[in-house]
């Protein structure tokens, strides 16, 4: 599927919109609450966000397929394009750039110019949050959950975040393996 066609699907897929600030504030509240619940143990907060995202992703993928009507991607490159230009476009109305492909085509980076989850956000100034908290870590989980449902096991993590003072917000996604179909149980 050509890159153009992919972005057209992203443009044309109609979804109900909600107020962006509602999303930002709701998400911000969740993260803040997690930080409180785990006593600013940011590793744990990252983990919980990822887990929440995973559960969201497993459902979101069905909605994605139903709305966009796309079929299976032929290779991981196509998958990356589909995530950036259709997935992020219809759900968050942003289009991260896909770049930095590893030579074996199994790893790429998503660069977010605009991240609606992180609007208005400033990380707490306790000297650790800047180094430990990945504020938008839920997105990693969402990708992991949704791709698992379409038979791809992946690993995703943020490598930089403008909230931490980095130049860009970058997520690294790597394909671990394609999941084989589960065989039906043996006849007893």
């Amino acid at each position, binding site marked *: 599927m050509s890159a153009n066609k992919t972005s057209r699907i992203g443009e044309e897929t109609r979804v109900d919109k909600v107020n962006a600030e509602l999303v930002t504030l709701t998400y911000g509240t969740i993260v803040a609450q997690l930080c409180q619940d785990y006593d600013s143990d940011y590793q744990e907060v990252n983990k919980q966000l990822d887990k929440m995202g995973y*559960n969201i992703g*497993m*459902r979101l*993928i*069905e*909605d994605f*397929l*139903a709305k966009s009507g796309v*079929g*299976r*991607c*032929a290779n991981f490159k196509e998958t990356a394009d589909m995530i950036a230009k259709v997935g992020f476009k219809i759900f968050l109305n942003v289009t991260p750039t896909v770049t930095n492909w590893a030579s074996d085509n199994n790893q790429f980076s998503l660069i977010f110019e605009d991240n609606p989850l992180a609007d208005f956000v400033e990380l707490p100034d306790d000297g650790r949050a800047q180094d430990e908290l990945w504020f938008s870590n839920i997105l990693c989980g969402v990708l992991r959950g949704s791709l698992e*449902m*379409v*038979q791809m096991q992946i690993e995703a993590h943020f490598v930089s975040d403008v909230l931490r003072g980095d130049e860009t917000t970058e997520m690294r996604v790597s394909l671990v393996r394609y999941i084989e*179909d*589960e065989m*039906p*149980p043996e*006849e007893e």
Partner: protein
Amino acid sequence: MVVYSFYIFDRHGKNPIFIAITQLTVSSGMHLQTPLATAPGLHLRSTDDDSKLVFGTVFSLRNMVRKLGGDDDRALLSFVSFTTSQYKLHYYETPTNTKFVMLTDLKSPSMRIALQQIYINLFVEYVVKNPLSPTEHTGGVGVNNELFEQSLEQFVL
């Protein structure tokens, strides 16, 4: 047109997550009931065995279709239905490996679009998006969602 039975299998496929069996003609209304009635022309042993057979059949058939059609994943789209002298089996599979199977009489037109609509408008809306329904329907509990069942009933009418 007569719908004999309808199954949904999730990606694990072990147990159907939804079964509806009917023997009424569509014009006179379809009555969904979980494992009981026997469809005319279909010799049912027990629903449990039956759904295993159905799953085994579509699973093998789909694999065969894929093998013969080359590993291009568009081949996923190619197995649509098969017909025997007594019934027609319609099949639709989503990229997430949820399988929709419907058995109807011979006269029915292709139900592919209908199955797709069931997925998009009913299954995703009522089952997947229901925050309280589990993501994995394991242990043979099935979907068990009234809203879904009702609208399915209406849709098939």
